[in-house]
């Protein structure tokens, strides 16, 4: 998947519903209530947080190209796709952003430091400048290497074998695999910058970066303890067990201890609106969420019906039709609707 394809894919879900900059927050993985809710409402899980370091000007430039190429119409409030964009079929992709949340970068940093170390040690070179200078990555890697007894020639061969075999199996093109290996370094072999990769592959630097994320997601997904006992160790602490944000998990804990929404807000010294965001997140993720303390059965039904019949998830439009409902109740009801749609 290329960068503009990513943006366009997200926009197709959000046409007439959200602003042109909302895909930016989603792709970057902003942890705000709005973005998290949109992930659930519009089922954008694959795209969440796939490019955490994306800069606004880079995004804006790509959006401008969508205008000039006739995919997007000027509209101050909402994403307004053209017929051409609506006809356009997104390519198949292997992203799983909601699951990895940028942690694929940690996986890769670990891998690159491990390979750099193995490469030097195997060729009898004792000192080198580590390619990763985060203390955390270095400490983790050091203890991992000691655990696998990395000085053994046999371990070296097995590690390489695991990388080679598991990469070979991935159902993606060779160029995509090459990009990943070009970002690795070893004794006498340096990694390549995105720009250098770009001139080698004829991909934009941004496209190359996205392809790398995709490779990492599908690769990490494929690893298992039986076939890749060494590589699987690199996944430690990286895969989100609960799909809730940490903060929402704390709210859930207090709620299950019997505290009310108000009390939780006071206890945690947070805005009520933030706690409301957490409940919406809970509603979205838990099919058995008990909504009754917040919204009555009847109100819930009427909000969901309006949303379906009008074909909208815009809060303001629904509020006009159901003036009795608070925005929180509307958001909650829409979140409940989520996957049963």
């Amino acid at each position: 998947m290329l960068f503009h394809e990513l943006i366009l894919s997200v926009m197709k879900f959000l046409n007439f519903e959200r602003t042109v900059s909302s895909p930016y927050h989603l792709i970057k993985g902003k942890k705000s209530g709005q973005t998290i809710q949109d992930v659930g409402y519009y089922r954008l899980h694959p795209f969440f947080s796939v490019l955490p370091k994306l800069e606004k000007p880079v995004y804006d430039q790509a959006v401008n190209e969508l205008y000039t190429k006739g995919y997007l119409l000027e509209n101050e409030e909402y994403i307004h796709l053209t017929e051409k964009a609506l006809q356009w079929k997104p390519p198949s992709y292997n992203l799983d952003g909601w699951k990895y949340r940028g942690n694929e970068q940690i996986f890769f940093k670990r891998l690159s430091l491990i390979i750099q170390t193995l490469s030097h040690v195997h060729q009898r070179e004792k000192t080198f400048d580590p390619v990763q200078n985060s203390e955390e990555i270095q400490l983790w890697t050091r203890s991992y290497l000691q655990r696998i007894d990395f000085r053994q020639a046999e371990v070296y061969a097995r590690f390489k074998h695991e990388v080679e075999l598991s990469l070979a199996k991935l159902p993606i093109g060779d160029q995509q695999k090459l990009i990943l290996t070009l970002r690795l370094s070893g004794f006498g072999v340096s990694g390549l910058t995105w720009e250098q990769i770009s001139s080698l592959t004829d991909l934009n630097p941004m496209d190359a970066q996205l392809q790398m994320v995709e490779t990492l997601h599908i690769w990490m997904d494929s690893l298992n303890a039986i076939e890749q006992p060494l590589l699987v160790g690199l996944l430690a602490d990286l895969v989100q067990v609960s799909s809730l944000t940490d903060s929402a998990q704390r709210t859930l804990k207090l709620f299950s201890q019997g505290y009310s929404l108000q009390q939780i807000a006071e206890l945690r010294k947070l805005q009520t609106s933030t706690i409301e965001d957490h409940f919406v997140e809970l509603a979205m993720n838990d099919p058995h969420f008990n909504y009754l303390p917040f919204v009555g059965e009847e109100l819930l039904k009427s909000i969901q019906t309006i949303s379906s019949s009008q074909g909208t998830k815009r809060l303001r439009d629904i509020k006009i039709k159901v003036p009795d409902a608070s925005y929180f109740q509307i958001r909650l009801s829409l979140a409940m609707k989520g996957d049963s749609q």
Partner: protein
Amino acid sequence: MNLQELLYSSYGYTSFRPGQEEIIEQVLKGRDVIALLPTGMGKSMCYQLPARLLKGSVLIVSPLLSLMQDQVAQLKKMGEKSVVAINSFATPQEKAEIWRSLHNFRFIFVSPEMLMQPFVKKQLQNLDISLVVADEAHCISQWGFDFRPDYLRIAEILPLLGNPQILALTATATAKVTEEIKSYLEIDEPFLYVHPMDRENIVYDRKKFEDPRDKIRWLLDFVGKYQGPGIIYAGTRKKSEELSSLLREQGISSSHYHGGMEHQDRIFVQQQFQNGELEWVCSTNAFGMGVHISNIRHVIHFHLPTSVEGYVQEVGRAGRDGEPALATLLHSPGDEGLMASMVLDDLPTRHEIEEVYRQGDAQDQLVSNGIVRETAYRVLSYWRTRLPMEGTIAQINMLQQQKMIQIEKMNRLVTTEGCIRKFIIECFDQELFDLPENCCLNHGIIYQEFHLRTQSASSTLKQSWQERLNALMPR
């Protein structure tokens, strides 16, 4: 065991580099020391070796984060395991771990900002610190080119630590700056070691162009003729990218380097340069720290640097191996004006001063809202707590006058018809008695000493991912 033996048994070196032994001897005698050693002369050894003999820990205050990271990496590379850096990049877990075991570390690096946090102060107070190292001590000078207001606060922590012994290190300081270091750190009778600033294997050249476009023509001709490795310093990020792609079009391996690049990409450029895969790096002044390559033959300044001190630092990255290296300064009409405006641009404006005083404690917003620039804010937030507004305005006016002197010096570097080497050395209040044979533009340059290009045009190999993996991890 004498110092030589200790040096050999600890690090495997058979001899000290000039100055190191004198400085270490004085440190071990318990004296405060101010040492001026050019970069690349092994400054860190001056506290590294004493640390093996001193009872307590060594606290190193380092004003630049990237420099701190580099020093920590270098110490670890030399086999020192007992090293820790306290900076804002550490995660909460890392920090908790650091505090728990702080007393175990022989080398503790800290940034001036961290030093001022009450919690950090308290942690440090509980330690037995034998030596405080003020690294890059010239940053203390508010008149210097590299002023860091936070650095002045080192003096505030010394009493809390029981006034330990001090070692102030810098690669660049005039006599005036040395005096300032003395007075701020309250060092009465330091042992002062001043290494001669002159690097005799560096040859100073200068090229004047009437038409700015001729600069590029000259540059392309030059890199086609002479063998690197070399650094080309440009004034802007954009220019560094532009020059680098021009070089590549000529079939010469080159990459740009600047602070706007992703961190990992910057490391890759350093790796490639170090591995000899890149012949030239076109960069802003962000390149240099953490680059430990001894055989750099050329440093070319495509634009005028903003100070003689900065120039000397950048040029000083060449020829660490002692072999001849050429420093070439390019200029064309208009460059001086550009340089002057860049120097003065840093100064807080009247408007910024007023805003900072008006906002009181809500000042953080000023930077994020773009009302006050970060560089200006750094300086003003220091003075705000110490002077009324009029006082600060007077300070900034004085600073402006200093900046004018700085500009004037740079202009003279460009125009002087006397010996360029002598001119530079005199900027540091030192004298030069012997000139090398291959000296500078105005004393004649023996270009034959610089090797002509033999490397054929680089070609990028098309590789499969399996071949790449085999190169990374050969059998």
